[in-house]
């Protein structure tokens, strides 16, 4: 039962990165994709993400809800242990999400500030996620009782910084592949050029993070190796499938979900471990079985409705943005 809930958490987090990752990519690249004076162009780029935006972002909300409900003894350890990173992440997320939603609401408003907030917010979000997950792979700086070590700089170790930079490249690539499917035709050439320039950094990140990780992480399981293999297979599909964006898009979405899935399998059944020897197992982290069942009765139908509705949204808005597309953001 506990394993199933761990899987549900993985599904929600993986879904979040697979979907929201391209939101952040498009946000970071907004100034590079259309000139600052070209308001109609910027609206069309944002319009590509538009119909999916609200639905994408809330996968994280649901994931944190499951983390709190099903694993109440883990949530506090993780968020308090990486306090500064979680704060940075939230500052980025809030700025990005609010700016996307508010930017285009007043027709005569000045939008430069909002556009900057979108780009900066997306960048901070991407870097913070990389730093956070990189630290989870390596082990959070906790003391032997699982309390956060009062050492902020330990969270910015070189391995985590590598992940932070890697996530920027990864989300940018994801955003570009998304735009190749759904973006307006007029920027197709620019999207292709930018995609090619982000392929190499992402590849370097995957290779270096894997090799470095293999040396710094002990007891790597077969499941972790399988996730790494899936990640590389997804990357190759993107690399060789660029001319067929409808194949490359699911591949790059899978690739973005891989880091979170990797953390999930590396941290199972010991969900939290620190270099000091502190360990928390999945059974210690989980709530009682009857409580988990109560949440399950609500969660299962909600998730089914959700996946159906989001699938229909995708079907309805699968064509590139053109004159007839509905723009909102």
């Amino acid at each position, binding site marked *: 039962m506990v394993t199933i809930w761990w899987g549900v958490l993985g599904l929600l987090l993986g879904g979040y990165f697979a979907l929201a990752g391209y939101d952040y990519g498009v946000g970071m690249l907004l100034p590079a994709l259309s000139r600052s004076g070209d308001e109609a162009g910027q609206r*069309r780029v944002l319009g590509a993400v538009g119909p999916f935006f609200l639905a994408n972002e809330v996968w994280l909300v649901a994931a944190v809800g499951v983390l*709190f409900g099903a694993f109440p003894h883990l949530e506090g350890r993780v968020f308090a242990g990486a306090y500064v990173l979680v704060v940075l992440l939230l500052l980025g997320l*809030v700025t990005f999400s609010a700016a996307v*939603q508010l930017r285009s609401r007043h027709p005569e408003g000045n939008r430069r500030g909002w556009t900057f907030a979108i780009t900066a917010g997306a960048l901070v979000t991407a870097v913070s996620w990389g730093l956070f997950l990189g630290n989870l792979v390596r082990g959070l700086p906790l003391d032997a009782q699982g309390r956060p070590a009062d050492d902020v700089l330990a969270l910015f170790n070189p391995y985590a910084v590598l992940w932070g930079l890697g996530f920027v490249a990864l989300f940018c690539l994801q955003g570009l592949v998304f735009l190749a499917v759904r973006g307006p035709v007029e920027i197709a050439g620019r999207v292709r050029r930018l995609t090619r320039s982000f392929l190499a950094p992402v590849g370097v990140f995957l290779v270096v993070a894997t090799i470095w990780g293999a040396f710094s992480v002990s007891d790597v399981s077969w499941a972790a190796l399988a996730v790494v293999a899936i990640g590389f297979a997804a990357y190759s599909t993107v690399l060789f499938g660029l001319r067929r964006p409808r194949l490359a898009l699911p591949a790059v979405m899978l690739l973005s979900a891989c880091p979170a899935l990797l953390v999930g399998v590396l941290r199972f059944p010991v969900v939290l471990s620190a270099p000091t020897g502190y360990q928390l197992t999945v059974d210690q982290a989980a709530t009682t079985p009857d409580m988990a069942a109560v949440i399950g009765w609500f969660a299962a139908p909600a998730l089914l409705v959700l996946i159906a509705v989001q699938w229909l949204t995708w079907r309805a808005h699968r064509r590139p943005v053109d004159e007839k597309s509905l723009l*909102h953001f």
Partner: protein
Amino acid sequence: MDPLPIARLQFATTTSLHFLFVLLTLGLVTMVAIMQTRATIRGGEQPHRMTTFWGRLYVVNYALGIVTGIVMEFQFGMTWTGLSAFAGDVFGAPLAIETLVAFFLESTFLGLWIFGRGRMNKWLHLAVLWLVTLTAYASALFIMVANSFLQNPVGSRMENGVLRLDDFGALFANPALVASLPHVLGAALLTGGFFVTGVSAYHFLKRTNEIDFFRRSLRMGVVTSLIGSVLVVQAGFAQFAEVAGYQPDKFKGSAGVGLPLGMMIMVGFFAFFASLIGTLLLFRDLLLRARPVLFLMVPGIAVPFVAAILGWLVREIGRQPWLVWGKLRTADAVADVSGGQILFSFTAFTLLFVVLAIADWVLLARIAKRGPAVATAETELPVLSGV
């Protein structure tokens, strides 16, 4: 540096701001849903335009509700780790269900509503908006269930130093919930009603050409305010009997609670009488000519927000020093994060939220002032969602 006061201040600031936005969200979405129902059943130009205009304001307000909500959700794990360790097995469920069933679905349906406009069957589109409304109310229900559990931990027992669930149903029959939920829902309707009334009054003061549009809006705003204020006052007083049962000393000799309580009651009665007078003046549209009354209605928009914050203070300050009443002290629940780090996050969140909240309110004011007419610049772009 002692982390406790800063962590409390951080949570209070985030929650207060969140509360201001979701209260209007809840009230406004109900009214927009009724407007769209009228437009769908009877047809006609005006109800349709009303749905668009008030829906536009609703969407702008919603943005800040969602972002402040995310930060609140994370804060339980960031600074109140003792709470999840001690009561997570009970308290976690309503919170998890709130995010999964309500928050998650609400946003998805809202996206569907915004982008389904004119593309979707009109009955289906209406159903989607009612689903947004329903999930917003579900959200309020589960959050109040969680909060009421902290006020009065029913349905649970102590076992090895932590709380365990006995009876999930008891969480919904909690005396701390039964009167406070209608009180909060009444406050939301009152907030939405005062907002629509105030904006409509502004346009009459400016001698608008959209007389029919704002006459209909004003009527709806005033009547909603009356319904909301009756509910808020009635459920407000009903709470005294309930509170006496589970927190008997709450209102005795504590100035921290007494002052906001007295002010809230005054504001509540003021809102009730103002709504009553407004409703009476609807007779033969007397209200449209009563300019002094219209003049008061514009700043009146702020009144329910003030009352809501006061009510929030009464409920939350009144239970200190307990986080879970009688079981877990607030001081024992705070995380082992250093005071300096919490001070950093408190400063950063507060600055960001204040800037965003002001930007959001300025945006709301500008859209509200512009009225329902669509500007020419907007029509040059491709198809816009309208809201």
